[in-house]
């Protein structure tokens, strides 16, 4: 018997099938948007313990009213100046115990970054967009100081030219090949030196 050729499979409709799948995935999926500001809420405190008295000079009050106007330490301020004002407050180092502060050492402002508290108050009619903008600026102020601190301490611990945010991304990155235990210790040290003490007033 003569050898017969295998007939060619008609692949003409493959494109149709692929299109069908493509359109299905286009419709049922979304491109994930998974960025955001991470925050921690304070736990509800039922205990009868009196809260410790905090000196007025260690509190940086930020008030956002229903017209989205910003009142910082009882003075009207533009959102663009908030970051610099918060840095100046945190970096003040009034009692001299903070070795890395480069602020004015003003007696009337905060003692050290560990004692400095930023208090954020908003009203019910405040817009969410404005609130996020303020949160963002305050987080940015902490990040600026932590980055600066990281660039100072980093080289001694063997992490040259790495700011705080890079350290955090590297610590999470599985492809990063440095010493992660040492890096974690350094990150924790900076977090303790410049803690994020951002308190929100519940109204």
């Amino acid at each position, binding site marked *: 018997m003569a050898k017969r050729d295998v007939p060619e499979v008609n692949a003409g409709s493959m494109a149709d099938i692929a299109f069908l799948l493509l359109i299905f995935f286009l419709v049922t999926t979304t491109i994930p948007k998974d960025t955001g500001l991470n925050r*921690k809420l304070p736990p509800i405190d039922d205990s009868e313990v009196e809260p410790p008295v905090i000196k007025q000079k260690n509190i940086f009050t930020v008030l956002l009213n229903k017209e989205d106007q910003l009142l910082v330490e009882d003075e009207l301020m533009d959102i663009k100046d908030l970051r610099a004002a918060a840095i100046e407050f945190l970096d003040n180092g009034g009692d001299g115990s903070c070795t890395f502060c480069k602020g004015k050492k003003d007696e009337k402002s905060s003692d050290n970054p560990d004692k400095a508290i930023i208090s954020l108050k908003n009203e019910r009619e405040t817009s969410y967009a404005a609130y996020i903008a303020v949160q963002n600026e305050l987080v940015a102020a902490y990040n600026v100081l932590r980055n600066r601190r990281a660039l100072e301490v980093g080289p001694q611990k063997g992490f040259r030219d790495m700011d705080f945010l890079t350290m955090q991304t590297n610590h999470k990155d599985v492809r990063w090949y440095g010493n992660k235990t040492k890096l974690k210790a350094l990150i924790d040290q900076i977090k303790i030196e410049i803690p994020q003490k951002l308190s929100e007033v519940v109204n």
Partner: protein
Amino acid sequence: MSKFKKKKGGGVPPINTAALPDIVFMLLFFFMVATEMREDTLKIKNNMPVADQVEKLNKKNPISFIYMGKPKEEYAGTYGQEARIQLNDKFADVSEVVAFIGSERAALRDEEAPYLTVSLKVDKQSNMGIVGDVKQELRKANALKINYATGTGDATSNMKQ
């Protein structure tokens, strides 16, 4: 002499479409890899504000989403113009948040439950009133790790002029 004989017909030759499936498959794989399944059908407008100090949401930890915003036009007749909360696929009241967190926790393995992060996807036109209420409920439910979902961009552009 037929060397210069004109081709007969003279019609347009058919385009070779053999590579078409390859192109379509390429697109298909791109969308399969780069996107993920829609979890909830949004019944609210959800246009999020922007910020520039953003962190990526850690996908290793379990995440629950709470949506807030004004109802979309087709629901505006029933649910009004004010910002509302959406849990899973339906509108919900503030008092349902605690139960929602409870059911989200129950669906997780025991060792994962403490790491539950709540992502608040809030429309930028909402007021802080509703967000504050939800935050208070989350404190009651002891779900303290939260994340304000935002886009990336210049945060000061959020402030209305």
